[in-house]
């Protein structure tokens, strides 16, 4: 195995141990997240290795991976910008924020990743922060009350190698780092601003 070996294989086993004996298939999503945290998206090799770990066919794992939008089967930018355009955000101006995301990143509609491979823009459904619409997530960290100007600023910061401070919780350095947290494991780098208060 290329992805799950050494310390990472131990992590995979720790993830599988969250579920009762014989129910290790339940670990498919966190294992795919862990693979995504290594490779930046879910690769063919990841599907095969996860299948081997939990003892099912690769097609079964692919069926799962292709169902969920946060498991990405195509190359994804270092940073993922997700813009909610659902009704509440739309009422508060999300359409312009979404357009600004495409313009600022230079990603055409229908495209997903910037030419330099740094940024991905994804049109999101409701992100569950409706009282502070329009909302955006950068590497799955929340940004509230986002204007087109703020979105352009966020893109500039990311291009300059800086991850903007989110509205709540710590900044997440990359989509890979977010994927690792989504697998339920501790971040590889400690999160700088993670205090106890909200």
């Amino acid at each position: 195995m290329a992805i799950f070996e050494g310390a990472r294989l131990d992590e995979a086993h720790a993830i599988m141990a969250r579920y009762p004996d014989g129910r290790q298939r339940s670990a498919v999503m966190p294992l795919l997240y862990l693979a995504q945290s290594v490779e930046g998206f879910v690769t063919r090799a990841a599907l095969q290795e996860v299948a081997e770990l939990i003892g099912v066919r690769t097609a079964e794992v692919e069926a799962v991976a292709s169902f969920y939008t946060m498991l990405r089967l195509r190359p994804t930018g270092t940073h993922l910008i997700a813009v909610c355009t659902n009704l509440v955000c739309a009422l508060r101006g999300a359409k312009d924020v979404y357009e600004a995301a495409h313009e600022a990143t230079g990603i055409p509609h229908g495209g997903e990743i910037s030419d330099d491979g740094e940024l991905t823009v994804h049109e999101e459904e409701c992100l569950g922060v409706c009282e502070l619409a329009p909302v955006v997530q950068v590497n799955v960290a929340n940004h509230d009350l986002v204007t087109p100007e703020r979105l352009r600023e966020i893109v500039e910061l990311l291009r300059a190698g800086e991850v903007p401070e989110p509205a709540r919780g710590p900044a997440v350095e990359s989509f890979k780092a977010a994927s690792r947290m989504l697998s339920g494991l501790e971040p590889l780098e400690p999160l700088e601003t993670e205090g106890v208060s909200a």
Partner: protein
Amino acid sequence: MTSESRRVLTAHWDDPSVIALAGYEHAGGYRALRTSLDKTADELIQLVKDSGLRGRGGAGFPTGMKWSFVPRDTGKPTYVTVNFDESEPGTCNNRELVEREPHALIEGTAVAAKAIDCHLAYIYVRGEYLWQARVLQRALDEAYAAGYLGQGVMGSDYDLDIVLHRGAGAYICGEETALLSSLEGYRGQPRLRPPFPAVEGLYESPTVINNVETLMNVPHIVNNGPDWFKEVGTEKAPGTKMFTISGKVERPGNYELPMGTPLRVLLEEHGGGVLGGKALKAWTPGGSSTPFLTADHLDVGLDFESVMEAGSLLGTGAIMVLDETDCMVEAARRLVEFYARESCGKCTPCREGTWWATRVLGRIEAGYGRDEDLPVMADMGKNILFRAFCALADGAVSPIQSTLKHFMGEYEAHIQQGRCPVTGRGPSHDAEPAQEAVTFAPTGPFEIQGVPS
């Protein structure tokens, strides 16, 4: 304390210390778990039954009754699964409840687990709630370290583990059987009922699935008794409810009010009225899947029965407010588009119907609507409603049928004028070079195969 001012789930929202264990304990936390450890499963179930607590996730099913359906003598383990997959557009109270007081969810989950003799509970949290899941995990770590979880809970002979499981961006996983499929490592597709999860749920074992807000009410019922709980709210729906009000409103936010509080009170006294003093046009009582109501319904009480009587559903208590400047065709199209994207693909009426409906609505919105589109929409609604496996498809019909019911004139004007009568948007505006950039709606005079032209 007057019934209007009772705050139960939000009582400590002004106190940031309750996010950590010490603060939560100081505010009286984990007393209910202590009490519950000395009670039998039947006593706990009876207590919650007596309180009249009903599920806050949308369906409003009596919680105690749900627990009582779980057989505890099958030889299989029993499971509690917490539905923290809050994904209904407009809904975000579970998020804030957990951000501010994560231990309250852990305590509620632990009491529910004790009531059904469960030793392993899962909290299914939507992936997008990355930070909230971390808040919860840190709270779980604290609870384990302090002996509230793990082997011998609080020195008793009762063992309980609570494990977080993160979703990955699928609205359908909020449907309880789809959630179970997802948690078992499958695509999040709903399952046939019966068997109901109470009998055959997670890992073919008896399972209780409860919403976050529902479970957070439980410790307070244990501490204060069922009669106290019933002091506020309505007879059939006691207690307080978390309402999210958002959209065109001055002070959007999560507000805890007694069940049955009229929309007028929530909107005007708490939400500060419609944004910019504009006129209220439409609102959903409980998220995207609940039919729109109008300004004529300002005095409808926000409880299951009253909202149903008014022609909608309380759902998650998520009020999305639209004002006089908003286009209802656009609103309906955006919501139906959501269902088209989130349909799991299992049933044809949902998978195909939501896609077609999005196209037809998009055509009307863009100014290319045809006279026959309105009967087509009505017909599609009828052919989707109650014809799919789960309620996702029904949710898609809500914005269609309710806008046709309350705003037929606006649809007709779109078709007759070839543009939106409210915003003035129409083909002449969209025929600019920027047209390509608009992916929100089909923007040309297109044919839809299979739909009469």
